[in-house]
């Protein structure tokens, strides 16, 4: 028995061990893995030895310093060639060197400099600057070009702040010259960053340089033309599938692809046309195809093709980028890129796959099959994206420049940088300021994308300018009726009166907290400051003399929840183009349409407070403060510029309208005859800063579903609105 037991133990132990080993090797890898690891094997990823060594090794701080000295020139990165400390004190400020007498500056470069100088990044003090921009024109570095600036090298070296180009940004559109068109600028850029068109991936220093689009000297400085897409056609196909019309280079770089285009041309829906005519002596190099190509070329109108094609080929020219790119983008003709190695414009932030077809020059013959295989839905979305991108980043020199600066700012303020979603979806990175919040759900634009809804309450901000003298003052009535709204989270009274704050007990008791903030400068713009106390997504902005019932507030808020990116208000105003005076007109008359709602009573997203305060230039805000007028117009301009949509007017009780027309309140600024003229002036000033008229007309008003319907009033939820 004893022996048997011993055998048994031994055997089972043996079996156990052998099984252990066999199983160890025969089980599927994952299970075996778990088993063996439990047994305590050495891990391939654990670097104990390295750890010890790492600790005795030089300090990481020193190592970082070594990096900055090693990685220079073509290997520059933000880590090694950019001095972040300059940006820490004053934020992202950009200095432009003063223009020197006698230096000729091309129109395009003047536009670039003007855009920077009128931006909110600009500083005239180099001591505050984080980024420096040369006033020497570096756009055209083609030696054969008339715009070429000579002796740049010495001119730049003599700049006192040059500092080997550190924290400098150099704009360039053309580099190199015939025949090889290298990307050399002809001077030593040192540690400067490049914002360059037609830059190749080989020369592009990721997260350091910025690839910008090639734009012509006629490119609008501000505003810019809108995209050509007016509506989405179904099915999305246009007359032509794929078109191109351009020069064919008989010699030199960039010839191959364009020379081969005729293979793909079918004169029906794929129309790829080239001409040999360029330069003076093209006939010398003329090949057998030239005459035929030239004849075919003249048969088609470029504009017509651009407007009527689904895809537009953008093959490289002499340089990697060509004008065709922006032309196609604006025309909602989906660009088909055929320019190997081109670092696409703003590639750091734009997901070009959503707006263009990235082809490969080596696979030219496959291009027609490829574009034909693209699904209708995809075409629909590509096309819309071209328009979004065009209007967000490319339609004017100012947008191109601001996008460049914002990209660099994002790198500098790593924490407050935009996510790809912000750059690639409406309204785009220039309107979505990451300094406001890093959480997308705090913005009014991304609720649908995130699958969430805005916070279902609002904060009322009442702008008080007159002293509190009687208990029957409109502001107190307003406070009570707003506080009664089921959606009201809190009320902020912004005390902008010269008189001291009234005692606490003077305010009526309400069920929601009332916070009184004393305006610092007592200026008009302070009503749109992004107060930290505003904790809800929605803001109900109110004038002190506004008359509103709880029902009206409730209804407007439910409407706003469906349109969180717009302003929802009561009294509306309209703009029109005054053809005689050649300027914009403002009207407060009752009209069949409107384009603004007064912010004396309106609900909008709190983000617009931030945008108003931080996006708009000081000049416009100062104008508003000085006139103590037009703040509502400016807010409407801003929101419509962002949304490209009109505000929303909701129904209101009759008495309220009268108040807003300026009859009841004694102190009302509406009674002032200058008031109206000022608003007209404001409109034109604003429109010129925005570069275009952003306001959009609407013909509808939103009413409660049963508004004035012939049904018992008891069935109506918002019955109070109908009562007089």
């Amino acid at each position, binding site marked *: 028995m004893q022996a048997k037991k011993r055998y048994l133990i031994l055997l089972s132990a043996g079996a156990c061990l*052998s099984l252990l080993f066999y199983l160890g090797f025969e089980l599927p890898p994952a299970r075996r*893995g778990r088993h063996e690891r439990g047994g*305590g094997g050495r891990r391939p990823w654990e670097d104990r030895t390295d750890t010890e060594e790492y600790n005795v090794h030089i300090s990481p701080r020193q190592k970082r310093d070594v*990096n900055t000295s090693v990685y220079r020139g073509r290997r520059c990165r933000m880590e090694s060639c950019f001095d972040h400390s300059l940006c820490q004190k004053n934020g992202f400020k950009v200095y432009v060197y003063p223009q020197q007498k006698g230096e000729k500056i091309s129109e395009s470069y003047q536009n670039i400099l003007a855009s920077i100088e009128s931006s909110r990044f600009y500083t005239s003090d180099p001591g505050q600057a984080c980024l420096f921009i040369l006033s020497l024109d570096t756009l055209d570095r083609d030696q054969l070009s008339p715009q070429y600036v000579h002796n740049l090298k010495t001119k730049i070296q003599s700049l006192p702040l040059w500092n080997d180009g550190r924290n400098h940004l150099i704009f360039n559109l053309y580099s190199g010259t015939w025949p090889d068109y290298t990307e050399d600028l002809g001077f030593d850029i040192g540690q400067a960053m490049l914002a360059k068109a037609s830059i190749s991936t080989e020369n592009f220093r990721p997260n350091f340089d910025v690839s910008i689009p090639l734009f012509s000297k006629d490119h609008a400085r501000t505003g810019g033309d809108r995209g050509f897409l007016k509506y989405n056609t179904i099915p999305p196909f246009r007359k032509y599938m794929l078109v191109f019309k351009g020069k064919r280079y008989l010699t030199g770089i960039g010839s191959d692809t364009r020379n081969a285009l005729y293979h793909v041309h079918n004169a029906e829906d794929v129309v790829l046309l080239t001409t040999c005519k360029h330069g003076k002596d093209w006939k010398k190099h003329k090949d057998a195809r030239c005459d035929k190509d030239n004849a075919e070329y003249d048969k088609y109108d470029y504009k017509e093709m651009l407007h009527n094609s689904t895809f537009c080929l953008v093959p490289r020219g002499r340089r990697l980028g060509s004008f065709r790119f922006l032309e196609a983008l604006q025309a909602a003709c989906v660009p088909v890129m055929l320019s190997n190695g081109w670092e696409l414009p703003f590639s750091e932030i734009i997901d070009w796959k959503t707006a263009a077809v990235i082809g490969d020059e080596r696979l030219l013959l496959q291009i027609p099959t490829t574009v034909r295989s693209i699904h209708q839905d995809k075409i629909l979305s590509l096309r819309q994206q071209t328009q979004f991108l065009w209007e967000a980043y490319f339609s004017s020199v100012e947008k191109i420049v601001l996008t460049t600066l914002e990209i660099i700012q994002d790198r500098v303020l*790593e924490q407050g940088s935009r996510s790809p979603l912000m750059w690639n979806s409406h309204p785009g990175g220039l309107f979505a300021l990451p300094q406001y919040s890093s959480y997308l759900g705090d913005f009014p634009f991304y609720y649908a994308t995130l699958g969430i809804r805005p916070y279902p309450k609002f904060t009322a901000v009442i702008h008080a300018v007159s002293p509190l003298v009687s208990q029957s003052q409109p502001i107190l009535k307003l406070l009570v009726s707003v506080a009664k709204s089921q959606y009201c989270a809190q009320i902020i009274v912004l005390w902008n009166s010269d008189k001291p704050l009234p005692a606490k007990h003077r305010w009526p008791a309400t069920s929601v907290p009332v916070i009184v903030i004393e305006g610092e400068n007592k200026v008009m713009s302070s009503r749109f400051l992004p107060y930290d106390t505003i904790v809800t997504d929605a803001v109900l902005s109110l004038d002190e003399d506004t008359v509103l019932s709880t029902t009206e507030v409730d209804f407007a808020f439910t409407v706003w929840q469906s349109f969180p990116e717009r302003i929802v208000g009561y009294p509306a105003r309209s703009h029109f183009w005054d053809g005689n005076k050649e300027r914009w007109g403002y009207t407060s008359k009752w009209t069949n349409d409107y384009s603004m709602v007064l912010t004396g009573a309106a609900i909008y997203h709190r983000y617009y407070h931030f945008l108003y305060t931080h996006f708009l230039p000081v000049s416009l805000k100062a104008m508003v403060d000085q006139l103590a007028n037009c703040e509502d117009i400016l807010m409407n301009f801003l929101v419509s510029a962002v949304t490209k949509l009109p505000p929303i007017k909701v129904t209101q009780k009759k008495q309220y309208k009268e108040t807003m027309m300026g009859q009841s309140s004694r102190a009302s600024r509406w009674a002032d005859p200058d008031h109206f003229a000022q608003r007209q002036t404001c409109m034109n000033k604003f429109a010129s800063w925005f570069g275009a008229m952003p306001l959009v007309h609407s013909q509808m008003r939103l009413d409660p579903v049963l508004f004035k319907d012939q049904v018992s009033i008891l069935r109506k939820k918002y019955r109070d609105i109908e009562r007089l």
Partner: protein
Amino acid sequence: MYPSSKYSSRGPALIPRMKIKHRIYYITLFSVVLLGLIATGMFQFWPHSIESSADWTMDKRSVHDAPLVRLPVSSPIPERGDLSCRMHTCFDVYRCGYNPKNRIKVYIYPLQRFVDEVGVPISSTGLSREYNDLLSAISDSDFYTDDVSRACLFIPSIDVLNQNSLRVRETAQALAMLPRWDKGMNHLLFNMLPGGPPDYNTALDVPRDRALLAGGGFSTWTYRQGYDVSIPVYSPLSADVELPERQPGPRRYFILSSQTAIHREYRAELERLKEENGEALLLLDKCSNLSQGAASVRKRCCKGQVYDYPQILQESSFCVVLRGARLGQAALSDVLQAGCVPVILADSYILPFSEVLDWKRASVVIPEEKLSEMYTILKSIPHRQVEEMQRQAQWFWEAYFSSMKAIGLTTLQIINDRIYPYAARSYEQWNNPPVVKWASVNSPLFLPLIPPRAPGFTAVVLTYDRVESLFRVITEISKVPSLAKLLVVWNNQNKSPPEETLWPKIGVPLKVVRTKENKLSNRFFPYDEIETEAVLAIDDDIIMLTSDELQFGYEVWREFPDRLVGYPGRLHLWDHEMGKWKYESEWTNEVSMVLTGAAFYHKYFNYLYTYKMPGDIKNWVDAHMNCEDIAMNFLVANITGKAPIKVTPRKKFKCPECTALDGLSLDQTHMVERSECINKFASVFGTMPLKVVEHRADPVLYKDDFPEKLKSFPNIGSL
């Protein structure tokens, strides 16, 4: 304790059947086998090498059977990786060619054992378990081909995951000996631990010509953007540990540092932070009292207190991932797995899969220099954002970090996306976790556009045989200024439409389409005859709408071209008693549907209804001859996430839902059927997409005290 322990229970069961005289024999046999196994295990394969088949090859060879290849000393060495390599210069795209599936084909070299001239292997570990897992996963995937001539991408079976175990020169020679090497063209190498002491290069030191490198720990100076792929450093704990599910939300600690290999300078700085902020921070280190080995890997200590790793990671909102000697850290994987938001301090580090993953949504990157400001920086992040990041981090791990398979296939997908960019996965596909994908709405008509008035709209009248009523409708609609064309869908196969001369004379083209079958879906077919974007669907008995009302409806549609804009509104309600949805047509304060008996919408929705309607809804509607309007409302709300717009006040529509008879009983069965439709559709859509609103659109001056003559749309709401 180990999986094997349950097998050992089989041992005793075998015993009774054995004869005593066989015992000695068995014992000897076992001992021999045992000893042999221990020996081989200890010396050659332990702990992470492969003995059994490497099943990515067709001929299931094992490491043992793998042919031995002797590398001559003079064997050529590839050039060092060319930093200027890009897909268009160093990658032969012709090998991938055009294929309708837009999928690259990947070939894996058969297993070979490379040894130098004196027979010493080029790698101390041979084929690691991890690399084996990776290759097996690829061979099981759609990417794999065993036909070398069809391959677009080649993966050597030479394991270079860990440079520490490699002999650099010999490995390079081995690569160059691969039959299709061709200067490394279209070859992909996977490496997770690059470099070695003292400099720790951030990319694999093995010279590799033009081969693509999927590397863990690239810095911006070694990473060839658009060519290399930055991959994570796999954490073996991924497979070992299953962490309990943890919902995003506040955690016990705010910041946790759990890495053991932190440079003392940084550790000092962390300790300073800890002093300033106290309990919010937890700094862990390795346990000095535990012996080296498995146990120590799974434990962390702080002042004598022992914590379980990686479980402790789940107790913190943020987890520090500091660079070590290398930039890529396996700790990143552990941290993500625990749903802890990684705070990455590794200057110039290229984050894993950064080409496609949006790391801003799952991590915080702080320059090493700003380590001391970490607390302030993290405190400034909104709570909701932190929760989103926790969820995102966990999901990134699950989708892209959790196994060698996930890492390998993600890498291939990224390369695939480069070769077929027009078929590439979108940002949303890469970055949205399933819960967001489910809730998120990306309308196909996303551009904010207000189409011009000029093209007008096409009225599509569905009719069966009510010619008289139809003619009245046509006459009425023809008065609407923006009508561009009238399309009559003749749904009666037994009767021909009236002769041309009998039709009302109207100022716009009138077309009649005859259908093949009497189906309700015919009204939503995207007919070529519809040349405008705006479609007015209208029943042949809707004669009560005025021209002003219709024109106004069109104007409203222009402001909301992605919505249904209709006249009679309806509502869905949750019936608590029955526990299901109910249809409501009474005078309600809310609207979630508009009837398509009179509604404007974008032609795109016709296309969607016809070709993209989920499930069997379309056929179901045709079979039941009811609810096509509800189906359309579902479809539009589901894809746009938006409510319809009801325009103008309620009118007495002549029972717009019932076609023939008025009458209470019929009305009721009708309502019951429509309630059923809502429930049916909600189950097919898997959700209730309808959105309830409390507003309708009226002209700006509707019912205002204003001269009617001056109103654009005076005739609204007349009965």
